[in-house]
């Protein structure tokens, strides 16, 4: 009993810290501070996921939510010239009105949450009942890659689309070729192989324990980010078609295997149980490779095959 109370105390402290960090993130005058606090917020979110028995989500949050988002934010901040420190003063009336509205929203949402039955109608029974057929033992992976694999397929689409969208904007500015710190260089040389190893491990372990394609991909992307920080470039002969093929391989493999069994009288995204394990691993391997490279490319922020930055104005075509 006492142990539970202690844990509840821990939860309360964690919850309070999360709220405080969120508030500080938004209201701090210095943008750098805001970003750093947000990263801390993400890491504590990962802790909250652990407390909620959601280790898969914790891994995803730590690698993607805090790690890569943090890297993206810091990199964007470094390129941002307009860093005005002070928000212009908004009127007290607006703040008060909005505050009152938020308060009502909070009350309303709180009411919904507390009026829910303490025992849920969720799908945990269904998930467990069919786990044998899904060919993976980790229920979260089973949902992601089998029961609701269609969502995951579209999600790979979202990632690829985001990269396309960022590339279509053209590069804002190239990163200044920074002085390469020897310690960072050494660190990179040690860590990149380790990251690749860990990525493979997460991919493999995802079938029966926390882990999976997204977490593996994110770790791979972290290796990429380290390399970019070391002023590393992909050789130009690989930046064109070869790179693009790697970016799409996850999506294409998913569709190809998902549709492949249609010709054997299955439906789209259905795998025969006896073959499912192998094919799922194949899909996940391709997916995590693509995810890793896409996330790293998002960090780089521009199409490496486009040489100069002269195309500051991409015209709409013929007119103007």
């Amino acid at each position, binding site marked *: 009993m006492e142990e539970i109370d202690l844990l509840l105390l821990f939860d309360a402290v964690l919850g309070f810290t999360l709220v405080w960090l969120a508030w500080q993130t938004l209201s701090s005058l210095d943008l750098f501070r805001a970003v750093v606090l947000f990263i801390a917020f993400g890491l504590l979110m990962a802790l909250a996921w652990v407390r909620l028995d959601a280790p898969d989500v914790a891994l995803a949050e730590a690698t993607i939510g805090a790690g890569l988002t943090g890297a993206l934010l810091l990199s964007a901040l470094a390129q941002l010239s307009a860093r005005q420190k002070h928000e212009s003063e908004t009127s007290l009336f607006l703040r008060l009105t909005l505050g009152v509205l938020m308060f009502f929203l909070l009350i309303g949402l709180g009411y919904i949450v507390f009026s829910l039955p303490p025992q849920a109608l969720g799908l945990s029974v269904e998930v467990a009942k069919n786990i044998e057929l899904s060919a993976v033992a980790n229920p979260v992976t089973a949902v992601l890659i089998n029961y609701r694999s269609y969502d995951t397929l579209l999600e790979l689409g979202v990632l690829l689309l985001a990269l396309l969208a960022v590339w279509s904007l053209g590069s804002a500015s190239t990163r200044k070729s920074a002085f390469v710190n020897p310690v960072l260089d050494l*660190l990179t040389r040690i*860590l990149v192989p380790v990251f690749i190893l860990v990525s493979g491990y997460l991919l493999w372990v995802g079938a029966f324990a926390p882990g999976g394609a997204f977490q593996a991909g994110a770790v791979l992307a972290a290796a990429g980010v380290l390399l970019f920080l070391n002023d590393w470039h992909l050789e130009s002969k690989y930046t064109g078609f070869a790179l693009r093929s790697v970016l799409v391989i996850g999506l294409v493999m998913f569709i190809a295997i998902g549709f492949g069994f249609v010709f054997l009288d299955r439906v789209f995204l259905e795998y025969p149980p006896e073959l499912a394990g192998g094919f799922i691993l194949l899909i996940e391997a391709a997916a995590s490779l693509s995810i890793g490279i896409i996330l790293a490319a998002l960090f780089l922020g521009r199409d490496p095959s486009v040489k100069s930055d002269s195309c500051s104005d991409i015209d709409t075509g013929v007119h103007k």
Partner: protein
Amino acid sequence: MIIDIVTGVLLLVGALFFLAGTLGLLRFPDVYTRLHALTKADNVGLGLIVIALMLQADSWFVVGKLLLIWILILLAGSGVAHLVASTAQKRGLKPWKK
């Protein structure tokens, strides 16, 4: 039984190191001394906690993973500390003198 006690002691001492490191981070006067406090204390503190957890591990595999975590954090921690310090130096932050 003895293992449990040892674990407890190690955890406590480890936590103390973390506390000291955090105090140093908050109270020390400049970036270099703060880094010193943070990395030194956290590395040792983490080491003690990792040893404590190793004692409770079910298999050698888990022990290996814990060890790997410690080594990685040592590497990353010291590397990042160096980067922060050298950046601070490049920006011309003078070390604190009494």
